[in-house]
């Protein structure tokens, strides 16, 4: 039997502190891309009890995703955004999770991302990452943007860092490892980068109680 909403809230407040949990519960984050980065960022935010999570992806689950993405074998062929929503709701049943199966473009980003104060870039292709970052920084200079850049290969996980580029733009990753050079994408190293992204998002949400 699933515990009640009140039981969840009490457990989260006990673990995180009531003030921090209040901030997590009130927060709203959009995750652009529900692959290796996005599905792991989303899982961390859902477990932390972030109250409003919006997922955007145009793709479907493929067997090649299962080495690092938060999907199950029986979900192959299903749309990622909706399927991740289902999976996150099993983890954290009382948060508000919405999903949109759409490809983000420079044309639709200004409309589709407008409602969200915190934007997580979790794409896989370099030119698409650049497109989203440029579009968001041009249209929404007041929003927080957290991007993942460089988590391929088998180098030490210690190479992955969080860098503050401007006051509201953070870059997580090793900055150099490129899947286009034939490097592998391995579960743990991708999850480290995603955990960097999720950590800075949670720190931003809690900024009045945590000093950055």
């Amino acid at each position, binding site marked *: 039997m699933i515990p009640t909403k009140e039981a969840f809230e009490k457990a989260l407040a006990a673990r995180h502190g009531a003030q921090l949990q209040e901030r997590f519960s009130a927060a709203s984050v959009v995750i652009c891309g529900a692959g*290796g980065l*996005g599905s792991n960022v989303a899982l961390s935010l859902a477990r932390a009890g972030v109250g409003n999570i919006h997922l955007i992806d145009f793709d479907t689950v493929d067997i090649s995703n299962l080495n690092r993405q938060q999907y199950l074998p029986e979900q192959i062929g299903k749309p990622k955004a909706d399927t991740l929503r289902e999976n996150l709701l099993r983890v954290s049943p009382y948060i508000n999770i919405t999903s949109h199966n759409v490809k983000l473009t420079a044309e639709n980003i200004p409309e589709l991302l407008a409602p969200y104060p915190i934007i997580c870039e979790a794409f896989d292709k370099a*030119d698409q990452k650049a497109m989203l970052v*440029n579009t968001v920084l041009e249209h929404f200079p007041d929003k927080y943007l957290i991007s993942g850049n*460089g*988590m391929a290969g088998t180098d030490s996980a210690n190479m992955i860092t969080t860098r503050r580029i401007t006051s509201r733009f953070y870059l997580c990753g090793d900055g150099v490892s490129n899947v286009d050079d034939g490097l592998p994408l391995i579960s743990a190293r991708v999850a480290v980068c995603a955990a960097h992204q999720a950590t800075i998002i949670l720190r931003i949400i809690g900024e009045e109680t945590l000093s950055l």
Partner: protein
Amino acid sequence: MVKINGKETAHDGIKVSQLLEKLGYKPQSVAVECNEEIVPKSQYDTFTLNDGDSVEIVSFVGGG
């Protein structure tokens, strides 16, 4: 002097598009900030870097 990714360089007066070409960056996979503000891609050919500017070139790689 123009500071590029933390290093002082003598690129005063150069356009952003020229700088990217000179340093070997692909324009379609970068984001360029000058003094903490994004340089729109539409301005790469006209935006001139001046003495005292601090530029950050973020070059994106594949994987996610």
